[in-house]
């Protein structure tokens, strides 16, 4: 039974504290509604960049947890980022991978390899400190406190359904430059 992405996001939001969150593509509209704050930056318009943006923030602010909401199709576009992240060894980075097997935003075309692609094995092979899959919301809720304190980088492959909205159907949201400026201002104020 796959999880609804919106349920996953609500569960993360309930425990995230002051973590910086980086949604991308289909998690962006829902996250905007669930967590309308200035500690999130949505990656839309440069698909594949969420993991790298999260890495940069994690390296810059090692005292703060950074959570990336990546997509399977998105990560495939910059798969080398797994090795770059593992090499940088950010202890504060959690990489949540929403796996649905398709490019939902562009019309649900199957990603290369579909649901058989094993991102857990890839992350382990790249050198992440931990990587595992979760298919049940209750299990995710049990493991979330650990994800917020255990040493990263950690990748969690989340087996999910399609989101209710995509960036194409939802529209809206602040421009990327405003989001970057807001999170920078917040981090400056709290530095």
């Amino acid at each position, binding site marked *: 039974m796959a999880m609804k992405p919106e349920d996953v996001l609500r569960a993360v939001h309930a425990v995230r504290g002051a973590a910086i969150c980086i949604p991308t593509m289909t998690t962006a509209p829902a996250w905007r509604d669930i967590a309308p704050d200035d500690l999130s*930056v949505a990656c839309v*318009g*440069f698909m*594949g*960049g969420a993991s*790298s*943006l*999260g*890495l*940069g*923030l*994690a*390296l*810059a*602010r*090692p*005292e703060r947890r950074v959570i990336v909401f990546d997509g399977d199709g998105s990560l495939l576009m*910059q798969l*080398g*980022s797994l*090795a*770059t992240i593992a*090499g*940088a060894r950010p202890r504060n980075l959690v990489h949540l991978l929403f796996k649905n097997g398709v490019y939902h935003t562009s019309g649900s075309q199957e990603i290369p390899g579909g649901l058989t692609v094993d991102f857990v094995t890839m992350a382990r092979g790249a050198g992440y400190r931990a990587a595992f899959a979760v298919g049940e919301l209750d299990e995710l809720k049990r493991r979330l406190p650990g994800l917020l304190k255990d040493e990263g980088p950690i990748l969690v492959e989340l087996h999910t359904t399609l989101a209710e909205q995509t960036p194409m159907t939802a529209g809206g949201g602040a*421009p*990327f*430059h405003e989001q*970057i*400026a807001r*999170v*920078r201002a917040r*981090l*400056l104020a709290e*530095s």
Partner: protein
Amino acid sequence: MPESIPASLIIDTLKDTFREARAARTAEGWGRAPHDHLGWILSVPDTHQKTVLAALDKEQALRVLTCATEDEAVTIAAGLHAGGEPVALMIQHAGLYASVNTLRGVAMDGRVPTFYMIGLLSRERDKAPRESRHSMVRYCEPLLDTFGVPHARLEGPNDVHLIPEYYRLSRQRRGPAAVLVGLETS
């Protein structure tokens, strides 16, 4: 005639550039830096700047992160900037071509100060890059012009002052700015 620039001169200039950036960061109101080093070099290895990259391996004051792609490097730089850290990219022209969408979507649309050092691998000593017989050399400056990215060429040791100037320019314009390394560093 262009001349090769010693790696040590480039590294010393980068250190000075980052010291200035750290001072600006403090003036902006950032608290104590979470790191001891002056700033970050994000590199996708460039044959043209390999002596600099080799010397950086022994350098404690600059933190080097090797990235798998230039797309990653530009986006990691955006995250570091958002977190208040000084950063420079060292790539080659082919990597610029490979990461054009990230140049547009992150550095330009994100209004992220992004300072590039771009090696002009295979650039002929006796020719302007636009007259090169190699397309990878020839198209670099026109591509930057197309995207409105200010750029200048490091044609010898006397040009290293362009490094802090273009670093500052990227901050002032809140976007990308580039220096092109004309000959292989020594």
